[in-house]
């Protein structure tokens, strides 16, 4: 079995990230599992850029991994920042035309003059990235043909001359290693012989999920880290006959989505925290008028502009409660790249079925990292659409009729006899304005009761590890893989750890969680925010007040690692009496 964490660091805008991406694709095409993590500067040029790629031949990769096995440092800053996270006995590959590392025996070091080879042998400085890939190919056994194949697809359009320069650079890297480097480590990437994987970022998987769910109208405003959804769908949505609008602001984006949904179409927007803040007034309108729609929030560190390129899970409370009055909505947390695809289908299905806004929480780390997934079988997906009025309903049409499940058939403009006027003012079942407290009580209850039905869905939570554990771990959203890996590692060591991971965050899966926690004394709650938002909601909803909730909260930047979660679980189990 091979399981290797590669980390690439260098100057932003110099191709460090795209080098990591090429490396990633080459490994996925070799049938390997991939999990990437990246950190950009907010600036387009300059600053420090880092991408970490975990490559393995196991069945599933749950996290970005802990310390790095291989550090590829393009400059001194990369070395200074990351060397301490290179494990003992790990491999440092560095550009010795840029800097020389301190002398120590902690790691194995391969100096390779990327810059010098690029300038002297190829004559183009930026081909140093290809030189590096060639060197890695030779050092760790990834076939160089894979790199060349991807280069041809990526740069083929730029002409044969450019392509040949890149090929020469790859070959120069290979040759340099053959002639000058004596391999002193035992790390090898083993092509698995399995079918090639799709390599998708979280945002790409999410966008594909929306298309598979039947998305028809997308509206959005550029914002990091959600812009890649806008760009992906700008390219792909028109191919399916849908429409995309880049609006003047996020308020207009949700406005377009509300309008399109009113007209009978599946519609969504995607944004980040600042955009969701702008949308909350209209979110109330959507809840009040019972419009099916999906809002994706790719969370980033806040408040205010915060750290646009850094991850955080700090919008949970806003997603659940944001807005004036009490506007019910469903909130889902996406848990992995694969879940981004299937989670969006669930989001649209729930929006349509319950005629409600659905907020989908992802975050910068999940949005931008790539992972390998097996190609989804689109012929077996369950796709739901909203309940339409029957002829009998239309005979005396009441848009907000109270039914046994509180879901009212929704007329669509164009239908004869379905006339109604949707309004944000409190209204009767027939849709007429009404200010009577009794009617308000009845209608607000209808809207709240309606979405509770979602808690009967089978997918709302997922369990891992030991049933009836001595320590349970409950996290949410993109922490799933990290927690699962911590549980697996702890149980290998003989601990009795278990995890429940809710995919639904609102309405809160109170019953499922309380049932799971019967007999459990301690719960560790890892999340990426300062105040422990999920832990607070969990505490409010625990039936057994003796359960000790250990909030493991830190503000964003870098996700928890499996080792950190496991350490906390161990600490909790020590006190177990």
């Amino acid at each position, binding site marked *: 079995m091979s399981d290797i964490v590669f980390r690439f660091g260098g100057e932003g805008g110099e191709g460090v990230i795209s080098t990591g991406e090429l490396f990633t694709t080459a490994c996925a095409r070799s049938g390997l599992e991939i999990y990437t993590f990246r950190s950009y500067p907010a600036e387009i040029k300059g600053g420090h850029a880092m991408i970490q790629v975990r490559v393995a031949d196991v069945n599933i990769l749950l996290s970005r991994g802990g310390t790095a096995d291989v550090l590829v440092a393009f400059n001194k800053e990369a070395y200074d920042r990351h060397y301490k996270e290179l494990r003992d006995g790990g491999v440092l590959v560095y550009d010795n035309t840029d800097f020389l590392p301190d002398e120590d025996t902690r790691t194995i070091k391969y100096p390779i003059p990327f810059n010098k080879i690029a300038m002297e042998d190829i004559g183009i400085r930026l081909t140093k990235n290809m030189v590096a890939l060639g060197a890695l190919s030779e050092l760790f056994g990834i076939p160089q043909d894979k790199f060349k194949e991807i280069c041809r697809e990526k740069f083929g359009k730029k002409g044969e001359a450019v392509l040949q320069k890149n090929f020469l650079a790859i070959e120069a890297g290979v040759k340099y290693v053959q002639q000058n480097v004596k391999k002193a480590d035992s790390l090898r990437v083993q092509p698995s012989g399995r079918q090639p994987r799709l390599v998708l970022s979280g945002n790409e998987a999410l966008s594909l999920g929306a298309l598979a769910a039947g998305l028809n*109208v997308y509206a959005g405003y550029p914002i990091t880290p959600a812009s890649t959804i806008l760009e992906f769908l700008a390219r792909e949505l*028109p191919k399916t006959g849908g429409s995309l609008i880049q609006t003047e*602001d996020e308020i207009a984006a949700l406005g377009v989505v509300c*309008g*399109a949904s009113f007209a009978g179409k599946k519609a969504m927007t995607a944004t980040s925290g600042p955009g969701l803040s702008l949308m909350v007034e209209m979110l109330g309108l959507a809840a009040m008028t019972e419009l099916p729609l999906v809002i994706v929030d790719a969370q980033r560190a806040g408040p205010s502009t915060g750290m646009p390129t850094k991850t955080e899970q700090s919008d949970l409370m806003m997603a659940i409660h944001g807005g004036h009055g009490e506007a019910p909505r469903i909130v889902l947390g996406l848990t992995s790249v694969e879940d981004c695809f299937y989670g969006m289908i669930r989001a649209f299905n729930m929006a349509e079925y319950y005629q409600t806004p659905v907020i989908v929480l992802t975050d910068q780390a999940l949005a931008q990292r790539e992972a390998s997934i097996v190609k989804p079988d689109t012929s077996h997906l369950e796709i739901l659409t909203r309940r339409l009025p029957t002829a009998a309903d239309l005979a005396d049409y009441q848009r907000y009729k109270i039914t046994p499940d509180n879901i009212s058939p929704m007329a669509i403009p164009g239908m004869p006899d379905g006339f109604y006027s949707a*309004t944000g003012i409190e209204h009767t079942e027939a849709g007429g304005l009404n200010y009577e407290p009794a009617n308000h009580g009845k209608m607000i209850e209808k809207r709240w009761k309606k979405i509770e039905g979602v808690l009967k869905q089978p997918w709302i939570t997922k369990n891992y590890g030991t049933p009836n554990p001595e320590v349970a771990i409950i996290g949410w959203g993109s922490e799933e893989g990290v927690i699962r890996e911590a549980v697996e590692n702890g149980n290998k060591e003989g601990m009795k750890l278990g995890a429940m991971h809710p995919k639904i965050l609102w309405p809160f899966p109170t019953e499922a969680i309380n049932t799971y926690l019967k007999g459990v004394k301690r719960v560790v709650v890892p999340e990426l925010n300062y105040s422990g938002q999920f832990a607070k909601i969990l505490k409010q909803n625990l039936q057994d007040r003796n359960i000790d909730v250990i909030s493991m909260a830190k503000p964003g930047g870098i996700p928890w690692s499996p080792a950190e979660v496991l350490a906390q679980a161990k600490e909790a189990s020590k006190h177990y009496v």
Partner: protein
Amino acid sequence: MSKMTAVQYKTKIEPVWCPGCGDFGVLNALCNALSVKEVDPKNMVFVSGIGCSGRLPPYVQSYGFHTVHGRVLPIATGIKVGNPDLTVIAVGGDGDAFAIGGGHIPHMARRNPSIVYIVMDNGTYGLTKGQASPTGPLGMKTGASPYGTVEPPLNPIAMALAYDASFVARGYSGKNKELEALIVRAMNHRGFSIIDVISPCITFYNTYKELPPQLAAIPADHDVKDRAKAFELALRDDKIHLGVFYENERPAFEDRLKETADKARGAGAPKLDEIFLEFA
């Protein structure tokens, strides 16, 4: 569908407006225009913002969406994009259009969806009891400006012309036939049309007496394609001109979106599975 009379376009719901409100005139002219255009009510959506005028949708036999303050235009755009076959008419007041929602107008002008926007402009916030609006005169004394406002009014027509809205007109709720004709013409226009309708508030800012002498029809020889001339008319401060200032046909948003989809699709619609292969 057999032709409906103007009265048949009205629902039985009694408007909440004060007796004598200009908005009754707008509602009448609208229903007359719908009758002339023979619009099928099932394919029509009235979208409104917040304010007295925002109450209009349920008074017309059609689908309606009474939304939030200032956002009538993006929501109307979503409806039109969602189903381009619908007749979409947006209505609202001057606070809705030019204060809280003013930021959307330039982008409507750029996009140019086939939506008629009727602004019932009375210079005041009637529903909140008479504060000055962006079109109220300088020095207007209200509860929120007891010493008189210190902000001069904006000029909605000049603003719409500056944004290059493709159809710009002004009407008066007291001149029903003329207003009806303007609405019909706006509905015939392919693209975004904005009609600023002076629609006095009888309770908080009654201008019925002083208004008529200031009104003048746009000269019959005005060339509606001449934007510079339209500006001249809009900037005149001796008269308030009524009629079509500017009309310029250009591709509508919904048509451009369709073109984009056709271009993206090429020969045939690809299956989702083909999009997956881009990531292999």
